[in-house]
């Protein structure tokens, strides 16, 4: 009798084990479930559209050219080469792929553009991206990837970004900005939607020291490093109409700490404060003095609603302890909040973008944005980072 009961128990146990083996993984624990259930990928939402130039122009962030706001939604290119999409007004990010039977984890996925992608841009209902010396485009839903043009022959690297239908770039033979071996002093641009060849916009030795540049109408503003000076950079302007070149300041703020529009330049200089420069008179004024107990490293990001100052205590790469200070355009501090979601000193993560009612952050630039601030909470005394849930 005992023997029969034992055999029955063993059979029952085997049956339970086999049944559990066949059970599919729950949705939330399936590692290949990236949540691409949306049928609205790349869908044009005409509510509250901004002027086309708002979407096509380059915007500064902590990263360069990795985040886009478009009439179709927001796009983010992670450092590991995947493109993520968020519907307008929806902070959830999914890999930009509608291919059936794709697990969204391979190089065949529509969302994968390349770990070597230099940046992404929006123009005339297409997403453009640069990889090595080539420009590619795709439809807004991530399909139909095509090579548009080759910028130059050979294996040299470049640095650049998309702006108003052009890819502006410098050739960095040594591998990156500030690399030993860079010897090309030209700034180039290539039209993204035709067969024309790239053209030289500007030739000047300041290009060899370039830290970043920006374009405002017919003017190009270049910030160039001053050797062994980590606090200041030089600011130059170049008119593409009159071809005039001018040095505006040798004590300006560095990359992602400046903004120029309508003949006024704005910058933040580490542990000195906010400054403005009149482009015509070259007169520079301190607008607000600011000094941290620990100088650390900073960026100041200028967006239509607010100026975002991000401060890290460490002098070098360490994003684990950063504070976001939010100022209005009269330099009044409105609010501040700590971003302590970056784990490990080797991880890079911070501000990604400002879109409609949200400020988007990523705890790791290798992955999709995963935190947001609801801008309606700014100044409420209860500002916090919310987790973007899948």
């Amino acid at each position: 009798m005992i023997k029969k009961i034992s055999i029955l128990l063993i059979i029952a146990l085997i049956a339970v084990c086999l049944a559990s083996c066949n059970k599919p993984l729950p949705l939330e624990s399936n590692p290949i479930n990236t949540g691409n259930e949306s049928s609205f990928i790349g869908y044009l939402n005409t509510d509250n559209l901004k002027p086309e130039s708002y979407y096509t122009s380059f915007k500064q962030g902590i990263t360069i050219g990795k985040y886009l706001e478009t009439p179709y939604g927001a796009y983010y290119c992670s450092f590991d080469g995947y493109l993520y999409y968020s519907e307008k007004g929806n902070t959830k990010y999914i890999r930009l792929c509608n291919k059936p039977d794709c697990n969204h984890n391979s190089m065949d996925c529509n969302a994968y553009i390349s770990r070597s992608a230099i940046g992404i841009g929006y123009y005339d209902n297409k997403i453009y991206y640069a990889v090595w010396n080539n420009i590619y485009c795709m439809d807004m839903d991530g399909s139909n990837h095509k090579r548009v043009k080759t910028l130059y022959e050979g294996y040299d690297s470049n640095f650049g970004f998309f702006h108003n239908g052009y890819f502006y770039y410098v050739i960095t033979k040594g591998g990156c900005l500030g690399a030993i071996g860079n010897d090309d002093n030209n700034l180039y641009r290539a039209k993204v939607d035709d067969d024309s060849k790239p053209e030289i916009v500007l030739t000047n030795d300041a290009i060899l020291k370039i830290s970043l540049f920006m374009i405002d109408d017919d003017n190009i503003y270049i910030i160039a490093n001053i050797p062994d000076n980590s606090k200041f950079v030089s600011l130059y302007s170049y008119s593409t109409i009159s071809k005039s070149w001018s040095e505006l300041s040798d004590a300006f703020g560095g990359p992602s700490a400046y903004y120029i529009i309508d003949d006024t330049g704005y910058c933040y200089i580490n542990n000195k404060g906010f400054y403005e420069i009149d482009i015509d008179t070259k007169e520079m004024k301190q607008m607000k003095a600011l000094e941290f107990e620990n100088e650390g490293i900073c960026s100041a990001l200028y967006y239509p609603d607010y100026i975002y100052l991000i401060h890290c205590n460490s002098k070098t790469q360490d994003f684990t302890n950063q504070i976001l200070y939010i100022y209005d355009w009269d330099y009044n501090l409105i609010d501040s909040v700590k971003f302590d979601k970056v784990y490990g000193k080797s991880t890079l993560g911070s501000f990604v973008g400002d879109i409609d009612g949200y400020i988007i952050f990523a705890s790791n630039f290798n992955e999709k944005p995963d935190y947001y601030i609801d801008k309606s909470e700014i100044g409420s005394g209860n500002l916090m980072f919310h987790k973007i849930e899948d």
Partner: protein
Amino acid sequence: MKSNYIKNISLLIILVMLLSYSIIPVSASSDYYESTYNYYNYDCGSNFDTNELSGEMNYAGPTKINIAIDYSYMRSGYLTVHTGSAIAFPQTSFVGIIATINTDYYFTSCYYSYLIGSNMVYSVGLF
């Protein structure tokens, strides 16, 4: 005698503490890998330093080999994170790549891809 010893040790500890604050930390790491591809041996060596990246590959077979590096870097004093890439000229037998950055910048991480023909046979990320 004993108090002198304690005094010297205390001074030494203070000196070491002061020095540790004045030295900017330098991150460095390396990786080595070897295997076979199409019955021929290959090896890949990667080195990461905050001011220099390098990689080299040997392959005993006749196919061309190559190295691509994708890296992030920052400018001193600012939070901006740049990304960049470099690729070597394809070669047979041996290929190497190096990127050296000046003192205004520093590398923060690098992803090395080793290719035989168009097939990636090894990759590694260093920081």
